């Protein structure tokens, strides 16, 4: 497992560098938007990674509720945290692109709003985990994740009723994207997906370690309390 982790980390680093070269140098400049279009090679892969991580969180949450498996909960924590980071990248890179191209930083469009609401839900999720440090926290958080998942389609439909401004996905309709651009995009998509998985994996391992340390500390203080209680009671000691 450790070997696989190192190999994949190395592969991710190489792919990220290659993706950066492809996005900034190799891919041709877009005709109307100019260089600012290159943000697309980071914006969309980040969004994809964030959504994958949120899905992972949902499945881990459901798995936790069914099997009460501590590892599922650790995966839920890791994927939610890393997902929020990627979602933040999406929400920051979007306006940077939108300002020169649309002339506005932000609009209440269907994808923007849904992403923002998703981000808000997962920030609430992380706050819940932070504010609650009892043994019930995993259950409460898992339930909140399910509520969030139910909410997102409703948000989508409520905004869908207004007309949307976001550019339609360009891949689905048989490639209006030039081949070198598509190549750069796919490289970055792969690199970011791997990057997301690796960060999430590290966070997952960290979470498991943290819990182990916590349990060890709790055990130690229990044992310590026992011995100090014995030491402070010489009578009981001599009685033994």
């Amino acid at each position, binding site marked *: 497992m450790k070997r696989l982790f190192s190999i994949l980390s190395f592969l991710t680093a190489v792919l990220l560098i290659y993706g950066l070269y492809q996005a900034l140098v190799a891919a041709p400049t877009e005709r109307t938007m100019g260089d600012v279009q290159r943000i697309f090679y980071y914006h969309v892969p980040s969004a994809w990674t964030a959504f994958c991580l949120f899905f992972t969180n949902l499945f881990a949450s459901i798995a936790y509720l069914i099997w009460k498996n501590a590892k599922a909960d650790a995966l839920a924590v890791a994927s939610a945290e890393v997902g929020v980071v990627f979602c933040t990248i999406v929400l920051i890179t979007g306006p940077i692109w939108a300002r020169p191209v649309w002339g506005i930083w932000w609009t209440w469009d269907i994808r923007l709003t849904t992403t923002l609401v998703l981000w*808000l839900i997962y920030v609430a999720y992380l706050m*819940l985990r932070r504010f*609650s440090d009892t043994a019930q926290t995993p259950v*409460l958080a898992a339930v*909140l994740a399910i509520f969030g998942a139910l909410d997102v389609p409703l948000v989508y439909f*409520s905004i869908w009723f207004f007309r949307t401004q976001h550019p339609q996905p360009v891949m689905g309709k048989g490639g209006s994207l030039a081949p070198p651009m598509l190549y750069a995009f796919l490289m970055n998509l792969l690199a970011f997906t791997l990057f997301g998985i690796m960060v999430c994996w590290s966070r997952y391992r960290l979470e498991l370690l943290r819990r182990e340390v916590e349990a060890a500390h709790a055990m130690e203080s229990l044992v310590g309390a026992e011995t100090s209680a014995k030491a402070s009671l010489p009578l009981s000691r001599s009685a033994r």
Partner: protein
Amino acid sequence: MSSFWSLTLATLVKDIRLEWRTKDALNSMLFFSLLVVVIFSFSFDPYAEQSREIAGGLVWVAFLFASIVALNQTWARELRNQVLDGYRISPAPANALFLAKAVGNFIFVLLLEALMTPLFIVFYNLRALGPAWQLIPVGVLGTWALVVNGTFFAALSVRTRSREIMLPLLLFPISIPAIQGMVEATRILLAGDGSARFWIVLLLTYDVVFTTACLGLFGTILHAE
């Protein structure tokens, strides 16, 4: 009457009686939303045309904030004397308890709305240009949307530190589509431009989805160890 409904009714009657004797939640909600109305009208100073456009938002934001008061005390009240633990070990179905609490809050918030709406009409010179009777289903569905999730999340946040702050932090993000539905429907009905049907259907969907989710998951929350 099955034992489920008689349990629900018993808890509901108990809550209403408690509220009737102290009127803590209702008084603070009323005064709070009155303050919101006054402060908003100072901040915006709208004339009639404009107020039709923004009143939907103001009304529902005021009710949303005010209902937090009632929602927060729903379960906090049961923490004293370990009543909640008593519920947990009793064989009574968890959903009976949840339904009673949700219906109780629903009644309190509806009462608040009934008392505050005339005041809104006076302060903002409102006169609906659309079919005004449709405001009733919007109000009922919207209030249930706020209250059913609010009751659920109050049960969730009562388990955390600083629970009073936690409830709005959890409830508001999830309520965004419901709030949009209420606000848009109210705006359309007041300004009389178009049909509010889509938004009423959206609210109905929201209510059905989240009532089911709450009833399905409340037992898990109540019995979480």
